[in-house]
């Protein structure tokens, strides 16, 4: 399943594990930007998360326990800055699941740059004060997209260790569960500052780490492509043979830490793929070389832009790779990037693509809580609507899923 966030709502693309035929559902939250989505299949849940942002009414984290048939829109936003602070939530940029030792922990990265944490599966959230109160925080500057905390990488081997990235602030890491944070930008350049290698202030666009070897990281910078083999303590340039080291998204292979995917863009002024050719670049040796992946992708007059969360890799074998464009196209490869197919066209501008492989319902049916699972179709929508009209005093209300197709 692909969770697709766009500037005007969320969509779901479904397929079997063969990944040959895809079915589109949506839009959900039509008219609202959805910059972050996630799937939480831990502890018997089958929960989709969607970070909605209305230009008028603010940002609200919503969820669905029935794969989008109905969505829960909280009566009041669950993520807010403490009253009396000088910050108000503008947007949720990222939703990340916590370490497997903490199956009810989630994180959200937001704008203005801050991290929120939930330890009860997303019912309640708290500001991570250690980062919010960091002495650098007042010196972080917004990039073109705002001052967002857009990347969260909980270490799979150590629940107290989390790496985050901010545009523009750079990379920070905690090793004590969020109490203290240290800048981790050694070797990452800031092309736009007098000091090209400052302690912090870099415009990091995306970081990924490998799930079974998390000290192996890749970083796509606002000019600069890097690898770390020590969990971000140091970064080394790996822009070897790419047409540009400017870009936004990154993907990493689920099993091979030497295989990663990028989409170079021509420049920070143009921000389209070079030469009108839609090319994903793949390395299979940790960045020593990169190869252009073009089969099935337009190679002329393709002035596409892929944003920081617009590329995702699934966990199947062979791995599937997917990306969405600002022109509303979604491409997918079921053979690790060797060839591509157009999965959806004419969507609103795509800002988020997340590939997920839900745990089969039969495998965990006994864990699904009653009352959260609804039949598909009109009857369930009516049921959801009816329920919402009778639960005004409850903390949440369900809204019917809207399908445009």
């Amino acid at each position, binding site marked *: 399943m692909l969770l697709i966030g766009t*500037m005007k709502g969320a969509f779901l693309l479904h397929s079997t594990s063969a990944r040959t035929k895809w079915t589109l559902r949506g839009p959900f939250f039509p*008219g609202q930007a959805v910059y972050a989505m996630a799937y939480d299949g831990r502890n018997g849940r089958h929960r989709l998360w969607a970070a909605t942002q*209305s*230009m*008028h*009414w*603010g940002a609200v984290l919503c969820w669905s326990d029935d794969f989008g048939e109905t969505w829960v*829109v909280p*009566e*009041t*936003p669950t993520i*807010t*800055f403490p*009253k*009396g*602070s*000088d*910050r*108000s*939530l503008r947007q949720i940029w990222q939703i990340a699941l916590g370490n497997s030792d903490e199956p009810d922990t989630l994180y959200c990265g937001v704008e203005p740059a801050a991290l929120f944490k939930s330890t009860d599966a997303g019912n309640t959230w708290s500001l991570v004060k250690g980062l919010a109160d960091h002495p650098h925080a007042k010196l972080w500057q917004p990039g073109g997209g705002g001052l967002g905390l857009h990347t969260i990488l909980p270490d799979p081997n150590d629940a107290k260790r989390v790496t985050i990235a901010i545009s523009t602030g750079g990379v920070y890491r905690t090793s004590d569960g969020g109490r203290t944070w240290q800048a981790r930008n050694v070797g990452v350049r800031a092309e736009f500052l007098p000091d090209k290698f400052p302690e912090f202030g870099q415009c990091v666009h995306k970081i990924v780490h490998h799930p079974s070897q998390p000290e192996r990281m890749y970083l796509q910078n606002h000019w600069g492509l890097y690898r770390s083999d020590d969990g971000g303590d140091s970064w080394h340039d790996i822009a070897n043979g790419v047409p540009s080291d400017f870009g936004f998204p990154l993907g990493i292979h689920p099993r091979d830490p030497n295989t990663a995917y990028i989409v170079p863009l021509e420049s920070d002024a143009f921000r389209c793929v070079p030469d009108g050719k839609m090319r994903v670049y793949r390395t299979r040796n940790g960045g020593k070389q990169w190869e252009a992946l073009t089969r099935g992708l337009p190679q002329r007059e393709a002035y596409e832009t892929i944003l920081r969360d617009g590329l995702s890799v699934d966990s199947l074998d062979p791995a599937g790779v997917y990306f969405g464009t600002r022109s509303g196209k979604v491409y997918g490869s079921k053979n690790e990037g060797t060839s591509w197919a157009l999965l959806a066209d004419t969507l609103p501008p795509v800002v988020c693509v997340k590939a997920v492989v839900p745990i089969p319902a039969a495998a965990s049916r006994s864990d699904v809580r009653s009352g959260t699972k609804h039949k598909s179709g009109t009857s369930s929508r009516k049921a959801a609507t009816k329920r*919402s*009209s009778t639960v*005004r005093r409850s903390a949440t*209300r369900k*809204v019917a899923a809207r399908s445009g197709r």
Partner: protein
Amino acid sequence: MPVEVVLPEYLRTFADGARRVQLSANVVTVRDALDALAATYPGVVSRVRTEQGEVREHVNIFVQGESIRDGDGLGTRLHPDEELLIVPAVSGG
């Protein structure tokens, strides 16, 4: 007659579908009115104001046809029988 709040379509979802809400409390300012509304319909007011209490940038509030931004903001005074209109701004893309 009490002050009446008129809601746009989207916010009616969070007010049991009501288009107009009469405020029973004695309210003197727009701030009072929103506080009173929040007591009954927190989902409405959390979408009109930020968590710091400011009216969101792309939300307009009118009292008797005048934008409160041209008046005293949340301190704009209300009188019995007056109408407080909440409208999404002309913005988007």
